[in-house]
């Protein structure tokens, strides 16, 4: 199935440069160029034989090997409920920076489901979807900083005037396995309530 899809994509959208990543274990996927993602999805959606009519997932993964620049990988998982198929379309993006997020075309015109999925990806991974009608954060607060699922993400220290993860609530002392330093806090007079 995948070889045929690659041919279909390359026939209709030559600039996509679709490639097949066949896997022995797990699922195979198709990598396309990020600039052609809209056309690729449009082709797959309108293809009569496969008819990928449902957008299931937009998932972003941050690949950041040590000492390298790394890249973001977006996976668009499409499914056909009429013809019973499923395909993973992947595309690579540069990681960009906080004020210059990597850009990719939005799929909102193809599927309404893309609206929230793209908002989630923007929130968690930090990808700017060009043409999205309402690109706001969805799971975190609107004034949250950073994109949590990035590998180099550091939690902000102060949020809305509150200290994030205050040390006195984190049981930090306990986690330093070693000498029994926290004896006082532990030997509660009546720990078992008897």
């Amino acid at each position: 199935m995948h070889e045929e899809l690659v041919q279909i994509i390359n026939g209709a959208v030559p600039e996509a440069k679709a490639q097949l990543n066949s896997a022995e274990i797990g699922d195979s996927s198709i990598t396309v160029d990020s600039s052609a993602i809209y056309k690729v999805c449009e082709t797959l959606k309108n293809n009569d034989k496969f008819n990928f009519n449902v957008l299931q997932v937009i998932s972003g993964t941050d690949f950041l090997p040590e000492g390298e620049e790394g890249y973001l990988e977006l996976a668009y998982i499409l499914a056909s409920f009429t013809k019973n198929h499923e395909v993973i379309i992947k595309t690579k993006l540069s990681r960009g920076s906080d004020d210059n997020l990597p850009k990719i075309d939005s799929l909102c015109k193809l599927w309404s489901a893309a609206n929230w999925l793209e908002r989630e990806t923007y929130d968690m991974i930090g990808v700017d979807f060009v043409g999205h009608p309402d690109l706001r954060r969805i799971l975190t607060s609107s004034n949250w900083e950073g994109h949590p699922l990035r590998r180099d993400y550091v939690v902000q220290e102060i949020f809305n005037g509150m200290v994030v993860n205050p040390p006195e609530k984190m049981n930090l002392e306990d986690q330093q396995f070693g000498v029994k330093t926290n004896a006082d806090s532990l030997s509660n007079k009546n720990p078992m309530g008897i």
Partner: protein
Amino acid sequence: MTFDLSEEEKIESPQGSEENIKSEILTVNMGPQHPATHGVLRVEIKTDSEIVTEAISHIGYLHRCFEKHAENIDYRGVIPFVDRMDYVAAMNMEHGYVMAVEKLLGTEVPRRAEYIRVLVAELQRIASHLMFFGTYSIDLGAFTPFLYAFQEREFILRIFEELSGARLLYNYIWIGGVWNDITDGQLKRLSGFCDKMEREIDKYHNLVGLNKIFVERTARVGVMDEDLCYDYGLTGPILRGSGVKWDLRKDRPYSIYSEFDFDIPVGTGEHGVLGDCWDRYWVRMREMLESIKIIRQVLEGIEAGPVMGKVSKIIKPPKSEIYLRTECPRGELGYYLIADGGKVPYRVKVKSSCFTHVSVLSAVAPGLMIADLVATIGSIDIVLGEVDR
């Protein structure tokens, strides 16, 4: 600002003539602490008198960073976290995740374990749909059915407690099999439960589903047609309520579902139009009957044997990725798992059905009465734990 209310609705509005009374658009926040939103969902409603012109859902109040957590815990440790996504149907959540990891590892699961997995998954489906039945009745103003539903649900939870040791968050289905074996006594009790449950469902349907007040509240309300479902990626009972015969257990069989004989109930538009709230309710009620059918077959066919396959102590799948979907009570749940060959998963992305289901609210809501919006939210049966993850 423009609001696209159709002409008929304007005439229907209680004010009568539009010229005399100037109505104002009012913004009402429903939630995040609201009994009818099933958790911490906030729906910002712009209303023109009683009619909703726009509904914007705000989520994220229950975000517990599951996907970030999963990057730091080993494969076994993720299972308790997976439970906490859809805490009403935790067994189904586990089932999907565990199968994804097993596929990467190439583990063979003993037959008995597969049977038990199907058994608990279907029991959980019944429990979850009973929960829907109860809470939906509460949404529509009937309290009694809730207690009836919990009575039967209690039996299932008790069985689960005896099996796994917990009532809600089981950590029962493990990589390679299941934790505990099921005893003959429990199987016997379950077969008695099946007979009772069939009668009970009939009773519930007579009590609530056929009631004229209930029908009036749900029929022709919140209609979602097939195209809308595909557009928004709606799955599960909502898709089936819209008349699409699609069930992963039949169409893309996983586990040992291909060996069982059951039907896929679809909506018929019996009391109103196809794809309304009543259809979704009716699909769920009949799904319970189908689940009982499967449980009966499990009880007949269950084989003796071990319940745990051979799994190494440290789980290290090879560098690979997988996307696996399972049919959960609320819709399709997909796990997109990327393994990099280490002890911890590199990325676990969850395709949550509730997440996509909430997004459809803004498309369905315009033109509904506020009370009908409550009925619609109830009928898509969301669990906020799965929406926010």
